[in-house]
């Protein structure tokens, strides 16, 4: 019971202190619009809104979660308030789950903002909403835990941003959103399949347009595997680097 209270308190504090701050709410709206505009700009003919939706949703989640988590945790480490959490009588895994839940929720909300815009413009019937929800959740979880992995690997806030881009930009171009994986040079294709976003984006393509290339069940299991791996390696790194 006391662990549940601690979890809930940390989550609510983070929501109030970071995720529900006006700049972040506006980021959540502006960012998906920017991605949509980018797809408009690169398109030669009329834009297939439904076709670009998996991409806009995936990138909104990826950028929203990794940025927020990497920065907030690094910031709390610098101001030493994170130490207070490490000194509390709650397990490290529960603490990190509490710290990451806010970013996961932020990512999920970010993903559905482009859906709301799309609803006003195009017909979204025939979409497998269950698979959309599962895919968005898993993209948010893996991206957040990637943000956690980044936060644990750096000391400064600016390093968190730089290091995030080291992962995000290759993922963006290799996950099949801009260039279909089958059109990538042969030597780059293996890299696509070691990136979690590839599986999340493909699963969303299946759910929205029915044109993914990987069995969605396989994608779900692989994303779960990435989530567990990133979370465990991050908590292990915290124990090694921060409880020194």
């Amino acid at each position, binding site marked *: 019971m006391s662990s549940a209270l601690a979890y809930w308190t940390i989550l609510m504090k983070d929501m109030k202190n970071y995720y529900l701050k006006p700049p972040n709410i506006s980021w959540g709206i502006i960012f998906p619009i920017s991605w949509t505009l980018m797809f408009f700009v690169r398109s030669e003919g009329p834009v297939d809104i439904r076709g670009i939706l998996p991409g806009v949703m995936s990138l909104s989640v990826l950028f929203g979660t990794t940025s927020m988590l990497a920065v907030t945790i690094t910031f709390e480490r610098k101001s030493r308030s994170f130490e207070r959490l490490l000194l509390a*009588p709650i397990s490290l895994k529960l603490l990190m789950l509490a710290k990451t839940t806010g970013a996961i929720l932020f990512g999920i909300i970010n993903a559905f903002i482009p859906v709301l815009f799309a609803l006003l413009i195009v017909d979204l019937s025939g979409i497998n909403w269950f698979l959309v929800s599962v895919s968005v959740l898993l993209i948010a979880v893996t991206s957040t835990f990637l943000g956690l992995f980044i936060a644990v690997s750096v000391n400064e806030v600016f390093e968190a941003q730089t290091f995030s881009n080291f992962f995000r930009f290759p993922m963006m171009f290799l996950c099949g959103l801009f260039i279909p994986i089958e059109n990538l040079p042969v030597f780059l294709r293996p890299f696509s399949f070691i990136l979690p976003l590839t599986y999340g984006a493909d699963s969303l393509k299946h759910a929205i347009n029915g044109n993914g290339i990987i069995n969605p069940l396989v994608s779900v299991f692989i994303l779960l595997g990435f989530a567990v791996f990133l979370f465990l390696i991050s908590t292990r790194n915290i124990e090694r680097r921060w409880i020194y």
Partner: protein
Amino acid sequence: MNIIEVSGLSKDYDGFKAVNGIDFSVLKGEVFGFLGPNGAGKTTTINMLTGLARPTSGSISIAGEDGIREIKRVQRIIGIVPDESNLYDDLSGYENLVFCSALYGVRKAAREGRARELLELFGLADTGKKPFKAFSKGMKRKLTIAAGIIHDPEILFLDEPTTGIDVESARQIRRLVRELNDRGTTIFLTTHYIEEAERLCDRIGFIVGGKVVKIGTVSELMKDAQKESIVELTLEKDPSEFKTEVSEEFSDVSISMRSDNTIRIASREPIKLMPFMSFFSSRGIDVYEAKIIQPSLEEVFVEVTGIEVDRMKKEKEGKKR
């Protein structure tokens, strides 16, 4: 009864021994002070006792629990006030206290009541919605201490509680520490202020270069350092005209005459005062006062550690700024 027992505790950082095989115990209900210069190992020791650092070797027992393996159980009964305030800048004093309390599983009504009570006790009740970042250094320190005791811990670890704050706030904090201890909280305190340690602590350990070099009550430490008895006599007038005579009369003791109508008598044996009284009164000089001179804790510290206290203070204050 010992509430903390530390045995052979060491911490290495890349081959550097920050703490080197220390042994000590803290009695339930006492104020125990760790006194030492920068880099002596005080904060590293606190970090190991509270779970922020893993010992390289040795054992820790806190309230009968294994302080290394069962640290999460131990953290329920300890409060920690680090050397620098670590509360949330954007939260108010009240919000910070309620948040910290919830981390220990304290129910809503109880944590809100306790937060108000502590804000009152620490003189911060009128801070309202003011965020922590807008507090003065002294207020920040007081709120950090309040956060450390929000869950009513059995043991409170205070790392340099008064460094870098104004005199009045420091005095209030010392009073609060005393009050907490009077209510039964065991206090483990690190400081580099000798007078603070002397005033607050029941027992003191000197730590230098990662080693505990001496532990005892203030009077024990002073007694150990006192190699001879010293008595100072205050006389009616300057006794220097009898200098040779008095030295010859009392050749078994060492006598030094001072410019303020006093003489100091030092001996490895107990000093008999009556012969001195008779000597001076027979020469028409009244003896006004006889005072036993003990070494100060500062002198004891310098003798035991070989470290100049002023240098230690300057280093610490410089680091804080």
